[in-house]
């Protein structure tokens, strides 16, 4: 099916108009680092936000490897080396996430180690790591916030318990691990044989 030319032009015009970045959506997509003041548009309740800071998602504590948190316990007294290298520590972490260029300080914060760092420079606590993940995985983040992606427990008509992305996906190697299935059902033929014994 081909559209008549005037109609085609109209559609093209609508698309180009709707794609023009508007002032109101820009600050929401790139929120200023904390402490730099908030823009007016940021306060609009319905503005789409890539980073849902301020929204309340009840999540259990982040799934840290035992003994690693707070990171500052060790790192506070250590000098920060910003060069990419093979680490002498944390050797159990195998980074299998995103392009090969990815490395620690894309997500971890070199100065305050107990926080994560967004691309904007804003710091987020580990308990709000979904804001970090949502920077790249915007569609999943959107689904997660409305309860379509990820597991919800609690009450369908009331208080719900969410999980952080990291509870199901190892952030350093996020592919979901295969599981051993529980036993298959007994075939009807076998049920009969058992009753006849």
């Amino acid at each position, binding site marked *: 099916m081909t559209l008549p030319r005037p109609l085609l032009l109209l559609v093209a015009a609508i698309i180009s108009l709707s794609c023009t970045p508007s002032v109101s959506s820009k600050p929401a997509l790139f929120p200023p680092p904390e402490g730099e003041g908030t823009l007016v548009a940021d306060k609009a309740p319905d503005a789409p936000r890539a980073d849902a800071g301020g929204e309340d998602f009840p999540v259990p504590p982040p799934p840290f490897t035992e003994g690693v948190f707070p990171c500052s316990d060790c790192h506070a007294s250590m000098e920060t080396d910003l060069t990419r290298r093979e680490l002498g520590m944390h050797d159990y972490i195998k980074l299998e996430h995103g392009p090969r260029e990815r490395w620690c300080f894309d997500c971890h914060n070199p100065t305050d180690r107990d926080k994560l760092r967004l691309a904007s420079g804003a710091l987020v606590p580990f308990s709000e790591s979904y804001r970090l993940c949502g920077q790249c995985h915007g569609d999943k983040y959107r689904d997660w916030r409305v309860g379509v992606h990820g597991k*919800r427990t*609690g009450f*369908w*008509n009331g208080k719900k318990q969410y999980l952080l992305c990291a509870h*199901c996906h190892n952030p350093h190697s996020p592919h979901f691990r295969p*599981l051993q*299935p529980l036993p298959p*059902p007994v*075939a009807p033929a076998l049920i009969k044989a*058992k009753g006849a014994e």
Partner: protein
Amino acid sequence: MEPDPRDDPSESSRRQFLKAVGVAASAGAFLAGCDEATREAFFQKHFKELDKDELAKVIARLEKDYSAKAGKPVTVDTTPAMDGVLFGYALDLSRCIGCRRCVYACVKENNQSRDPQIHWITVLEMKKERGVDIFESDPYYDSKEVPRPGHFYMPVQCQQCQNPPCVKTCPVQATWQEPDGIVVVDYNWCIGCRCCMSACPYGARHFNWADPSVPIDELNPVTHYLGNRPRPRGVVEKCTFCVQRSRHGKYPACVEICPVGARKFGNLLDPASEVREVIGGKRVFILKEELNTRPKFFYFYGV
């Protein structure tokens, strides 16, 4: 020729009298031979015809009976449907890995018989290259790890049809649809004819061929009359969206156990509910749509 004694009016009335005596005697013997609880159970009315006092009496009898058998207090709930609620379910086929955690969580929560085995949920393994193809699917897959490459998994349970063929076919109205959309069974009214099982296109109804066996320490004592209370032999049972949980606002057990978060549950009449988000924003289908059963169980692709 001798006159037929049956033509004799006096003879006929004697026969009727003896017949009446026989019936009365056998009924009397039956009722005298069993205790009051059995008598009450025998004459129990249909669940929907019980008034408040009768219902309380029935529940008291059942709770006493179940608690004695279980050796711990068992409660039987009769919470009715909430106003303005129509339950719906959505399952993400792109997430399910076929681990069968839901199957066994359901068995535990809903007191299904362990032997002979009854599962309300069947997980079908299907080939990705064939797509959703029930006839080619395998419910007995037993691989070391799931998901197997090239396969996807489709759990099937009661689809809680809005136009349920099982309800239409029941000759005694022992199964019906509640106002919140859940299709339930009154195990005290079911005669075990299994017409509903043959009418169900999803294989979602299951028959208790023998006395159900549930280990006492594993018996879930929080039960609902129309749901997970202990069943007798010879009745049909099925998924009720965990009526004992969902009518108190909780998610069904299968939703809570799913390790990949593939299962979504909520109120179809609430535009902000998770199921409505799925129906509004994802690619959704219903199983065997062509049969016009109008399931309230939706399969979707979350990717």
